[in-house]
């Protein structure tokens, strides 16, 4: 790869950097960004057709830059090749005074929102971007939150107050102005109606806002307005110890529970050099798949609900309740168990877990058949979802859509199969696909995924290995306690690790999993300290949401709701 870049763009075009995760990482110059990205997208071998992530790092207070040619800011492009799910990271060093890079929106439309996010969070300009404005923070916000000099805690800022005039000011700032988005207010025949669906609307699954440009009931264009659920999960990472950050990850895709712990821990464990024991891996897989089912059940019910079918959501929540019974028995908590630990899981499985899991496995296939005939087999539902919000594989890849949304277009692209992690290679399961790429097919894929997850869980149940549930490694947190009362070394390590938290070796790594909604990644940077220097969370809902405007154009208001329902997003997963 490096030689290919150097022969094409000159010997000093790319500088390589060592990373713990083995992902090729090159430093390139800002001026060459568009040409190199275009080359990698369409000409290089392998080609990297997906702009997976685009983010930045504020390097200004970093103690140890290692051998990298970094400056005040670093913009990171993260690309994916479909074959073998190979990843590539490109970095651009930017000076402090006017950090700016040429935009990549001309190469990948998906770069649009990512660049807006980097501008919003770091104040890095993207020259030539069509509409560089804040995306997560309110338009009235001062400063760029992920810069290291921006306060992170309420105690570092003045007391918050919201007087009447400020309230009015914020309201005016949030009012939609079509001109700012290049939209006309009327056509020759009729006035366009600008309708806000959200932030407070029963059909949007939470606080998100779609501004619709309507001609009658026909959608001319859509502008999603996100950020209402933004909680600064990445900024919090810079203030939490490696260990105490785990509960925050639970709440990113809040329907995915421990599924979110895993990519973060995969990244941290790579930095720490921990090999997780087999039993812990299988427990992790089992819990992840249980949460995949839980997520898909919520999706299934709300999908029917948004199409106007009233009852299924209650049945599916009942099943989810059974599932939470198992999660609660194992983890002690339900939605956000915070159960995985650096180097393993928090505790061993409780006595009698097999019966709970087996009962659930025996119960589900029967009800899934019922749900099939009630929801997926319903003719009205088919009429409402078939041919709606259709896209093909190329478009999905282009926009960074992963997970069921990608597989519904016919590409069996599942990270658990292509690049197994956490021992997935030992399990037998299929990757469900469909081929029309419409709202109905996205549903079919998810329903089949529930069945495949059940299959994986049954294998966990039948072949649960014996052994420890935590790695025997000094950085495992909390560390094994057995030796603490026997020798002072272990006692001190344990004490420090529990009170301060582990000190993770310097470096950077990213962990990537096939989450409930698509690929989830945590890209962590350590400078050999008890807290991460930077935590980047790449979620699946963010690009899926960005893709909604192009697939809604020409449809009607009810179709928008069908598309939202079939997308399966949660707000915290978009806004973080």
């Amino acid at each position, binding site marked *: 790869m490096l030689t290919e870049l150097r022969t094409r763009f000159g010997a000093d075009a790319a500088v390589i950097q060592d990373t713990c995760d083995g992902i090729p990482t090159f430093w390139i110059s800002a001026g060459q960004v568009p040409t190199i990205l275009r080359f990698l997208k369409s000409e290089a071998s392998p080609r990297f057709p997906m702009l997976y992530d685009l983010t930045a790092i504020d390097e200004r207070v970093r103690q140890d830059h290692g051998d990298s040619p970094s400056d005040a800011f670093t913009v990171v492009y993260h690309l994916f090749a479909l074959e073998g799910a190979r990843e590539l990271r490109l970095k651009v060093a930017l000076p402090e005074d006017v950090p700016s890079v040429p935009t990549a929106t001309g190469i990948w439309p998906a770069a649009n929102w990512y660049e807006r996010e980097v501008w919003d969070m770091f104040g890095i300009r993207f020259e030539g971007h069509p509409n560089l404005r804040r995306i997560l923070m309110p338009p009235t916000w001062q400063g760029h939150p992920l810069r290291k000099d921006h306060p992170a805690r309420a105690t570092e800022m003045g007391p918050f107050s919201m007087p009447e005039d400020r309230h009015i000011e914020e309201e005016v700032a949030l009012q939609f102005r079509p001109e700012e988005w290049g939209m006309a207010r009327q056509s020759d025949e009729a006035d366009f109606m600008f309708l806000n669906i959200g932030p407070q609307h029963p059909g949007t699954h939470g606080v998100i806002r779609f501004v619709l440009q309507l001609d009658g*009931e026909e959608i001319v264009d859509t502008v999603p307005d996100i950020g209402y659920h933004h909680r600064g999960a990445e900024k919090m990472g810079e203030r939490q110890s490696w260990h105490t950050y785990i509960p925050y990850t639970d709440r990113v895709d809040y329907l995915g529970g421990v599924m979110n712990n895993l990519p973060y821990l995969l990244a941290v464990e790579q930095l720490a050099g921990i090999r997780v024991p087999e039993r812990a891996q299988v427990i992790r897989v089992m819990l992840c798949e249980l949460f995949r089912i839980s997520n898909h059940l919520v999706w299934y019910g709300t999908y029917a609900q948004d199409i106007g079918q009233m009852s299924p959501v209650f049945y599916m929540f009942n099943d989810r309740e059974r599932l939470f019974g198992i999660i609660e028995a194992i983890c002690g908590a339900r939605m956000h168990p915070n159960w995985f630990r650096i180097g393993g899981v928090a505790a061993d499985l409780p006595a009698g877990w097999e019966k709970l899991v087996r009962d659930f496995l025996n119960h589900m296939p029967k009800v899934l058949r019922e749900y099939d005939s009630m929801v997926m087999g319903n003719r009205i539902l088919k009429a409402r979802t078939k041919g709606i919000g259709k896209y093909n594989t190329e478009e999905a890849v282009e926009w960074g859509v992963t997970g069921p949304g990608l597989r519904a277009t016919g590409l069996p692209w599942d990270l658990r199969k292509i690049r197994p992690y956490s021992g997935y290679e030992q399990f037998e399961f299929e990757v469900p696909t469909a081929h029309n790429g419409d709202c109905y097919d996205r549903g079919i894929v998810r329903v089949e995924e529930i069945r495949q997850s059940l299959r994986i869980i049954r294998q966990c149940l039948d072949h649960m290995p014996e052994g420890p549930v935590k790695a025997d490694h000094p950085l495992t947190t909390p560390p094994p306690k057995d030796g603490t009362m026997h020798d002072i070394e272990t006692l001190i390590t344990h004490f420090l690790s529990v009170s301060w938290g582990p000190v993770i070796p310097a470096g950077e790594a990213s962990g990537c999993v096939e989450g409930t909604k698509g690929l989830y990644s945590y890209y962590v940077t350590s400078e050999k300290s008890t807290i991460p220097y930077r935590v980047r969370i790449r979620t699946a809902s963010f690009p899926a949401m960005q893709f909604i405007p192009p697939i809604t154009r020409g449809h009607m208001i009810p179709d928008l709701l069908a598309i939202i329902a079939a997308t399966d997003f949660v707000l915290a997963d978009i806004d973080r």
Partner: protein
Amino acid sequence: MEGTQYWPFLVYVGAVLVVIVGQLLLSHLLGERHRDRVTGEPYESGIAPTGSARLRFSIKFFLIAILFVIFDLELVFIFAWAIAIHELGWTGFWGAMVFTAILAVGLIYEWRMGSLDWISRRSPAPRETAVRPAP
């Protein structure tokens, strides 16, 4: 029917009116009152609206209304035939058939013209970037 009594109907309608007016008045008297900064604004997902609900609306709704007027008026004639079918016999039946055939031709014409399909130009939507440049 000679013996149809109308007074119970009037009593009934009178009672209905009393019920309705009573309900409206009672709730008007019992209800609370409050006045806040945004009490007087229409609900639009809790955000300041862009443009009002009084606008030049799509012609499609009007088209459906016109179709309705045409068909419903013509169907009224069928009602008359239905009640008098025995008196009119087969002559009436063939008359109604011709009438219905004309109606059916009209319906087929509307159908073929696409006035019964709401979105006529459901061509693949353009897939340019979600956010277009400000002018």
